[in-house]
């Protein structure tokens, strides 16, 4: 799954640690999501979308391998 978490985070001028604290996960989890090595749960995807005030589809998108 592709995602735009890094773009949204940098646009919001937040560090990975800031975002991790905001959605209650570890900084390593945010890093893994941004590197597309970990697909978050639906709950975390919704939290991230809520945090950035966007749709989940704006943040995450299926790629050809999904």
């Amino acid at each position, binding site marked *: 799954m592709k995602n735009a978490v890094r773009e949204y985070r940098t646009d919001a001028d937040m560090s990975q*640690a800031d975002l*991790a*604290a905001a959605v*209650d*996960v*570890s*900084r*390593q*989890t945010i890093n*893994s999501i941004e590197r597309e090595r*970990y697909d*978050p*749960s639906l*709950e*975390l995807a919704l939290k991230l979308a809520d945090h950035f005030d966007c749709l989940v589809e704006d943040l995450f998108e299926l790629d050809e391998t999904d």
Partner: protein
Amino acid sequence: MFGLTTTDDTDPLATRRRDRRLFGGLIGAAMLAFFTLDFVGRPIVAVLAYWACVAAAVVVLYRSDAMMDERDRALERIASHRAVLAVGAALIVLSPGISALSAADVYDATPFVDGVLFGWLALFVVWTGTYGVTRLQR
């Protein structure tokens, strides 16, 4: 001062670090207490101290909301799955293989090897039971 950092209770990342360090410290203390007290000839006290430290670590693990997040739990699931697969593959190959070698008088398994195979088999029995119960619950 002296390299110590303060923990801000409102910062979940700081709480996570603190709880992880506490958990690791308690497990380390359990091992240290066990081996030290056993070494100085106090085996019963060693076991009691070990149990006390491990119990405290378990309390930290279950009371902490911050120690593990969903990625940690996902990693744990993947690692458990791979471990069961690896043990299963080894059991499928080794168990009948050793029996055949023993029947052909080529190799007799030592009690240690028998114990390892029995332990792996017991793991699968426990896994099957746990899977059945979990399936009934979901």
